[in-house]
């Protein structure tokens, strides 16, 4: 019994390592550019692993660095976190949490439910995934992200490494996320409303552009929903 469960554990770990290989390498590289950003923004190197271990939300972490060096109010930080990570609400609807038996394992799985973890687990047939394989996949992903951030921050702090081109990695990440989201939505109006909101917010409140633009676009989408709903009721 002992040997067979040890063999099952090894098989789960091997399967998880195979699952993570490609995505993990990418997270290591992106994590490194995050670590460099932290140090180049003027924060101490150890904030990189703190952000990546505690917040653990890649795209939000990049934004937090920029928001915190200008002393953004905590309410605006909370609203930004809410809007940037709102997509995670959808993940829970189909993530195979029921495969994980231990309480601690389930708690960690929810905490570490990043885009990549969702993509690697929810898209596979649930029968082929053991709970241990899911949790091991998530632990390996976070190890890649934290160690990438640590490596980048230490390189930036000790070698005073400043690569201006790496700033663009961050822009490119959001461009890719935007292309994916626009393509999945198959609708041009929300992105156009968003672009208009961003331009208006930049003009009227450049210091609070992110907050004003997102509140504006949520209001517009709610209004649109209400108008359509009223239209359907009349019809």
């Amino acid at each position, binding site marked *: 019994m002992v040997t067979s469960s040890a063999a099952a554990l090894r098989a789960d770990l091997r399967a998880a390592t195979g699952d993570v290989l490609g995505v993990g390498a*990418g997270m290591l590289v992106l994590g490194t550019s995050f670590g460099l950003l932290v140090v180049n923004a003027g924060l101490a190197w150890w904030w990189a692993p703190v*952000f990546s271990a*505690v*917040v653990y*939300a890649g795209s939000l972490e990049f934004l*937090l660095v920029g928001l*915190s*060096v200008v*002393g*953004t109010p*905590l309410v605006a*930080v*909370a609203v930004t976190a*809410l*809007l*940037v*990570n*709102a*997509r*995670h*609400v*959808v*993940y*829970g*609807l189909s993530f195979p*949490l029921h495969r994980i038996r231990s309480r601690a394992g389930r708690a960690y799985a929810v905490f570490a439910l990043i885009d990549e973890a969702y993509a690697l687990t929810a898209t596979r047939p649930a029968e082929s995934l053991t709970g241990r394989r899911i949790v091991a996949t998530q632990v390996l992903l976070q190890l890649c992200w934290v160690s990438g951030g640590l490596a980048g921050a230490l390189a930036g702090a000790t070698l005073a490494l400043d690569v201006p*081109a*790496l700033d*663009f*990695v*961050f*822009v*490119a990440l959001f*461009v*890719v*996320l*935007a*292309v*994916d*989201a*626009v393509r999945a*939505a198959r*609708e041009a109006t*929300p*992105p156009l*409303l*968003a*672009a208009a*909101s961003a*331009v208006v917010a*930049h003009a009227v409140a*450049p210091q609070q552009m992110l907050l004003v*633009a*997102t509140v504006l*676009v*949520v209001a517009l*989408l*709610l209004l649109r*929903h209400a108008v359509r*709903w009223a239209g359907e009721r009349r019809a």
Partner: protein
Amino acid sequence: MPDTGYLLAVVGVAAATTLALRAAPFALRSALRSSPLVDDLGRRLPAAVMVILVLYLLRDVPLTAVRPGLGHLGAIAVTVGVHLWRGRALLSMAAGTVVYAVLLAVLPG
């Protein structure tokens, strides 16, 4: 440089908000599934938020100045193009970043 207490508060607020969002659907599974408003926002908000974030990141780029302006626009065009073509996030980001580095080096300041 911001003080440690403020940064810890930023980390705490961001972590708590993120965790609440990740845990919410498991607590509210049935309610979320049946609400047309949540469903509607869930489908439309992600694209809108990402577009705003891209424009937010570009807010300080002088788009009419040759090097930063053309550097960003060219690199973004390549990122979008490669992503529509191959659909592999890391490849698109790598291609865009390399083009950005090249444009910074060759364009006149």
